[in-house]
């Protein structure tokens, strides 16, 4: 068996807690062709260039892997197609459809153009939820910062925004978890265990899709509160969104609207507990939470890479030609640690100047929910820092979730002395 590339090693589950040494290796070849014909881009400037290059498609249907692809390649593509069997949503489509759909969703997520206040108006409610979660920790000496803190906030908020009943959370939580476990881009993808999970993952996505289609159907008949109902009934200037596309976007918004935020809150707690100086600084100067969250986004990016892009034409970049049809993986997590862009990239600096990280990507696929994520994480992390007394990590590194793209700890156990008012 050929030696594994740095990229393949970075993807191994054993390296989930710390893929960064492999990223350092990877960046020695900014645009690195993998045995399966995928081009992995790991340096900041090259990622940025491709994010703005109109010869790059985000539409998974346009991937045409080269003929030289290794045996594993078909399997992986199969996995992508099977797990993401849906109609295109705004992260897997190109202009002009992407632009039209994103405009429509933006209007309902943020509010109309002349009063885009819907998200910032959520601040009091987010504060209430965070306060409630911290109150619950009173009297405990050990907490799980994931299950008891990072997870409940975003899932509650996004469900409410969309109009997805919170009673259904146990279902969709399980579907998402199963689907995420099945999506593997690394050398372990062919293992019997992942293959088994792939089958479950497919079923979960189907169930999730059926659930969402039924919910949207209900809203079509009986309008309700929340964004989904509003979109169903929006004939818009540019026409109504088809049901399939709406279902696909609704799944994306519900899933991406909390999973990434969960990981960011969890990573923020973990990272601050690993950096007592930064934690102390944030305690003394709470206003640093604003640049601080940007640094945490850079330091532990919630989306490590994205996998649906491909070259529509031959693209020359960094001395390499990416042939037409080749899949392109842009590794945000590596670009954010690129020493050619960020001084001392492996150091946490809550006041880092000129911190234009890739944690929310850039270009037209820039994170749709970034303002919501910022608001949630700023409030959650600053309140955690303010109220939780003497927090100590129980295990370092903590156990990680399987998924490589949506990288985050499964649990972050923390011993605490109490919770202030």
């Amino acid at each position, binding site marked *: 068996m050929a030696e594994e590339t740095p990229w393949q090693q970075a993807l191994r589950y054993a390296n989930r807690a710390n893929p960064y040494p492999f990223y350092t290796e990877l960046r020695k070849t900014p645009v690195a062709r993998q045995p399966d014909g995928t081009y992995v881009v790991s340096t900041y400037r090259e990622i940025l260039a491709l994010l703005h290059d*109109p010869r790059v498609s985000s539409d998974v249907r346009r991937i045409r892997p080269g003929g030289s692809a290794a045996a594993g390649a078909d399997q992986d593509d199969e996995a992508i197609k099977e797990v993401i069997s849906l109609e295109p949503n705004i992260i897997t489509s190109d202009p002009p459809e992407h632009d039209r759909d994103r405009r429509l969703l933006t209007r309902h997520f943020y509010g109309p153009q002349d009063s885009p206040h819907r998200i910032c108006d959520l601040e009091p409610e987010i504060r209430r939820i965070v306060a409630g979660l911290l109150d619950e920790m009173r009297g405990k000496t050990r907490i799980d910062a994931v299950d008891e803190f990072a997870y409940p906030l975003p899932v509650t908020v996004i469900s409410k925004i969309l109009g997805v009943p919170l009673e259904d959370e146990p279902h969709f939580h399980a579907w998402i978890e199963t689907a995420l476990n099945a999506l593997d881009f690394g050398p372990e993808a062919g293992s019997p265990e992942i293959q088994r999970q792939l089958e479950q993952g497919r079923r979960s996505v189907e169930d999730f899709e059926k659930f969402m289609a039924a919910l949207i159907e209900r809203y079509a008949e009986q309008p309700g509160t929340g964004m989904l109902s509003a979109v169903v009934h929006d004939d818009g200037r540019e026409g109504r969104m088809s049901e399939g596309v709406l279902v696909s976007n609704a799944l994306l918004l519900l899933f991406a609207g909390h999973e990434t935020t969960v990981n960011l809150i969890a990573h923020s707690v973990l990272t601050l507990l690993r950096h007592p100086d930064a934690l102390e600084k944030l305690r003394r100067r709470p206003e640093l939470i604003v640049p601080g969250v940007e640094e945490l986004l850079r330091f532990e990016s919630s989306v490590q890479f994205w996998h649906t892009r491909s070259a*529509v034409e031959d693209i020359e970049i960094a001395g390499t030609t990416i042939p037409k049809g080749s899949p392109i993986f842009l590794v945000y997590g590596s670009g954010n640690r690129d020493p050619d862009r960020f001084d001392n990239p492996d150091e946490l600096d809550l006041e880092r100047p000129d911190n234009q990280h890739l944690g929310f990507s850039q*270009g037209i696929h820039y994170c749709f929910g970034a303002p919501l994520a910022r608001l949630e994480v700023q409030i959650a992390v600053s309140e955690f820092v303010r109220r939780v007394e003497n927090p100590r990590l129980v295990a370092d590194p903590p156990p990680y979730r399987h998924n490589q793209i949506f990288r985050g700890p499964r649990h972050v156990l923390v011993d605490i002395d109490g919770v202030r008012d």
Partner: protein
Amino acid sequence: MTLSATLAELVRDFKANGRIVVVGASLAGLRAAETLRGEGFAGSLTIIGDEPYEPYDRPPLSKQVLKGWVPADHTQLPRFRELDADWRLGVAATGLDRATRQVRLADGEQVPFDRLLIATGTRARQWPNPAEAALDGVFSLRSRDDAARLRQALADGPSRVLVIGAGFIGSEVASICRDLDIPVTVAERGPAPLVGALGGVIGEIAAQMQRDHGVDLRCGVGVLSLEGDAGGHVRRARLSDGTTIEADVVLASLGSIRNVEWLEGAGLAAGFWGVGCDAGGRAFDINGVATDTIYVAGDVARAPHVLYEYQFLAMEHWDNAVFGAEVAAHNMVSLEPDYYPHLLLPGFWSGQFGVNIKSVGVPPFGDEIVFMQGSVEERRFAAAYGRNGRIVAAVTFDHGKWLEYYARLIEQSAPFPPPPPGWDRPDVMMPIPAQFPEPGVPTAVPDVVLTGHDPNERRAEFRPRSR
């Protein structure tokens, strides 16, 4: 002591004890002052501005302020550091004596300097007939006070606004009028709006956009005169096509004039074109020799640009003020080989009629244009400008996120037309003439004459202007 050690000591001493004067208290002046402090300059720092206000941001004046979203006095620029500067606001600089290194102020005071930054910017060209310009209801738009006055006039619900000149300011104001449901006529001498900046092809799109929003757009006509009522308030305008427009608010948006009069006699390469300087911001004297003590930044600066055949360009854009000021400030407290060049790819933006217009490069440098992405019909597109087979600029309508791609192509002098995108291609992707007007014949060019014969006597002089 070695020479380099001596020079290093010089720089240290200057940073500790030097005197720097910044003339111009707007965006460029402020950012230059902040950079000076950031570079460790601890000497005395004086900032002179003719307006009584602390530095404020101008782009919102023709947009959010006029619309009534933001009061004119809520446009103050954010401060990035403590300046510990001597602010001389509300008093204009009226002269520069390079021999004694002093700036003369309107109140008669003389401010001495070791290094001077000229950041006096531009002002709005006024309606040329002073009596008509003095009528109530006749406005120009450049300063905070201008914006506050025009905002008040729009809020009073005029029966019709006449905008003279359809450049960016004129077009933005017309757009605001329509937002506020105020009838508006735009009179433009050229064939379409924005033609000088973006050419006739884009101008035609801008014209259609204005008409779709209910602007009474009249191109190819000039305004001959303005007439007032007995109370001295403007009532109507006579146009060169023989028609008359009844309007009680008139905006003269006739472009800008560079604030260089105060430099008369200073022996600098200063004139209607601005203040000539090298790409490091060092001002040229009248002979075209770089000075070591006087620097220029912002709208008033004119420097050779490597990407545009080293032609001298004045870039009257927001980011040029910021980055040009940072480079000039750095160089003011540095010596060779530590000078920075100001190698900005120019760029600007505008918001009008619900469309975000952005551009990079120098569109008028191009002679061809090709639509690259999107749809002209929907007014969402990216277009590239080319010259001699190279891409030199790009413009986007509601497609700003793609501009960075074109900026990289321009920086690399990539071929024109660029390779087509992978999706969302316009129906027609053929380069066509961009239709820029011929450069106009400049007015009031000061004649330069050469005198002297020996190298140490050979000099340029401005021939005295007739007044």
